[in-house]
């Protein structure tokens, strides 16, 4: 059984696409919340009315609006739909975030704290009390008690209690966020701080209420295809690790959606490899100490927002997505390009680099489901020039490094390559990067991937 919140997200996407294809989306949108949570039915939250409100806001995001933009609570989804259908291009998200918190969906989890549960037996050895570095625990009426004015939430007591009677509660989105961008405002509502958020999507993936929503461009792509525009789908290499079928059949399935052409982003990765290796050789031969990869957009955002001085070490080579868009546009002049991947931060990078749209794997598969296209029933697509394996491996941690190393292999250089990788960005990453910059950690080639394991484990992965 899949996660209930993942189920709801995908179910809504499929219904959305089906209704669009039937030409009835405008009239059905406002009925969805009621049809999906009818009066006699079960609710996933306190009541069907709460569920309906959450469904409404999710639909708003699917239409490309964030809940925070709502000014009139009574405005119908049909009205948002009409606005979305007249926009030339999706809302510019530079300076704004692709992610937002859906207030109706957020459970407003209490702030993280250490709690003594009813399992405390008031034991005689009292390890919690003796191990507390701040003297915050005392025993009152045979039960351990925490003085919250002293507690620093270090959690030592939780690990020493022989009865596992002390727990540290967490707020999943705050814990997942590697940059401390999630906080509660004065009203107790969870907010994402635009100055700190790097759009990595870790909160989106970890919230058990699925209350963090992604501003979608699904409708914009559906509309362009329906209007017969020339659109090329660029499939990220991570798609091959989604257990979704052989790539040749996936290509056929995607082309049936009406795209002018389907290309592998891995072809762009081949160009990135060559350019990255050339840039590295040039920099090292010029006596520079360190160069890092730049294909992970969440990492690039991290540097931009937290350690601008470090930017000199980040390679200036365009990402596979940008190169792939070049390939698509040379082959089909005047076409629009849509990147399909497992990444939230790519939406930010796409916006900065003139990529028309970004879809998640989930959105692409909802489009397939909406047209009843089964990957396993599709004929294999004769890919004219398949990307080489090392380029397809970009989506896995160390894939970029391996590709660059093999590209460098043919040259005899004076410098010695010392490659290291940061596999997954967390709260310590900024410090680690500074140590590489100062030379305390040795390396001259550093690969940084925000998602542990690489893009294959991206927040919008299908493997859930």
């Amino acid at each position, binding site marked *: 059984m899949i996660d209930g919140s993942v189920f709801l997200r995908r179910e809504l996407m499929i219904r959305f696409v089906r209704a669009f294809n039937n030409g009835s989306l405008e009239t059905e949108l406002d009925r969805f919340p009621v049809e999906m949570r009818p009066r006699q039915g079960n609710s996933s939250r306190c009541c069907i009315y709460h569920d309906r409100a959450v469904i409404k806001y999710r639909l708003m995001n699917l239409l490309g609006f964030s809940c925070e933009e709502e000014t009139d609570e009574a405005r119908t989804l049909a009205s948002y739909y009409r606005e979305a259908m007249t926009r030339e291009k999706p809302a510019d998200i530079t300076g704004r975030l692709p992610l937002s918190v859906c207030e109706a969906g957020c459970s407003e989890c209490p702030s993280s704290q250490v709690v003594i549960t009813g399992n405390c037996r008031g034991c005689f050895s009292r390890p919690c009390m003796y191990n507390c570095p701040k003297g915050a625990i005392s025993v009152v009426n045979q039960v351990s008690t925490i003085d919250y004015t002293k507690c620093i939430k270090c959690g030592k007591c939780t690990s020493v209690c022989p009865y596992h009677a002390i727990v540290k509660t967490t707020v999943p989105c705050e814990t997942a966020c590697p940059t401390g961008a999630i906080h509660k405002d004065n009203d107790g509502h969870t907010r994402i701080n635009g100055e700190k958020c790097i759009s990595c999507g870790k909160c989106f993936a970890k919230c058990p209420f699925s209350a963090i929503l992604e501003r979608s461009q699904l409708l914009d792509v559906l509309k362009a295809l329906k209007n017969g525009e020339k659109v090329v789908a660029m499939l990220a290499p991570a798609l091959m690790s989604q257990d979704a079928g052989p790539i040749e059949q996936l290509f056929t399935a995607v082309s049936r959606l009406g795209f002018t052409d389907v290309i592998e982003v891995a072809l762009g990765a081949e160009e990135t490899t060559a350019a990255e290796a050339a840039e590295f050789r040039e920099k090292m031969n010029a006596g520079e100490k360190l160069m890092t990869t730049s294909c992970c957009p969440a990492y690039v955002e991290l540097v931009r927002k937290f350690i601008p001085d470090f930017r000199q070490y980040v390679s200036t080579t365009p990402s596979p997505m940008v190169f792939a868009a070049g390939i698509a546009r040379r082959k089909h002049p005047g076409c629009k390009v849509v990147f399909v991947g497992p990444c939230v931060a790519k939406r930010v990078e796409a916006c900065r680099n003139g990529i028309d749209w970004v879809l998640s794997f989930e959105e692409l598969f909802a489009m397939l*489901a909406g047209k*009843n296209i089964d990957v396993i029933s599709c004929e294999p697509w004769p890919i004219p020039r398949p990307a080489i394996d090392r380029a397809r491996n970009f989506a896995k941690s160390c894939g970029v490094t391996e590709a660059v190393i093999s590209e460098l292999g043919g040259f005899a250089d004076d410098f010695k390559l010392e490659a290291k990788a940061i596999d997954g960005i967390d709260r310590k990453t900024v410090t680690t990067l500074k140590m590489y910059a100062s030379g305390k950690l040795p390396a001259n080639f550093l690969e940084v991937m925000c998602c542990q394991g690489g893009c294959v484990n991206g927040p919008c992965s299908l493997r859930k």
Partner: protein
Amino acid sequence: MKKMQLEICCGTTCYMLGANRLLNIENEMPSDLRGKTDVRALPCMGLCNEKELAGAPYVKLNGHVIENATAEKIYAKMRELLEA
């Protein structure tokens, strides 16, 4: 004994809504049920159109349709058929 036929719908809708988790079910079955089924992945059976989208993933066990299929529901139906 004749093996039970377990057909898992792998249409894109069912795949997205959980069928991808059921494809390995044979290896995860409790010992009393293991080896008693032939598992097959089928293209879309059309049930998400005829019946309800939110009933996905659909599977059929000896022709009996199981909605919102989970491993537990499949095991329960298998035991029911074995006892009958």
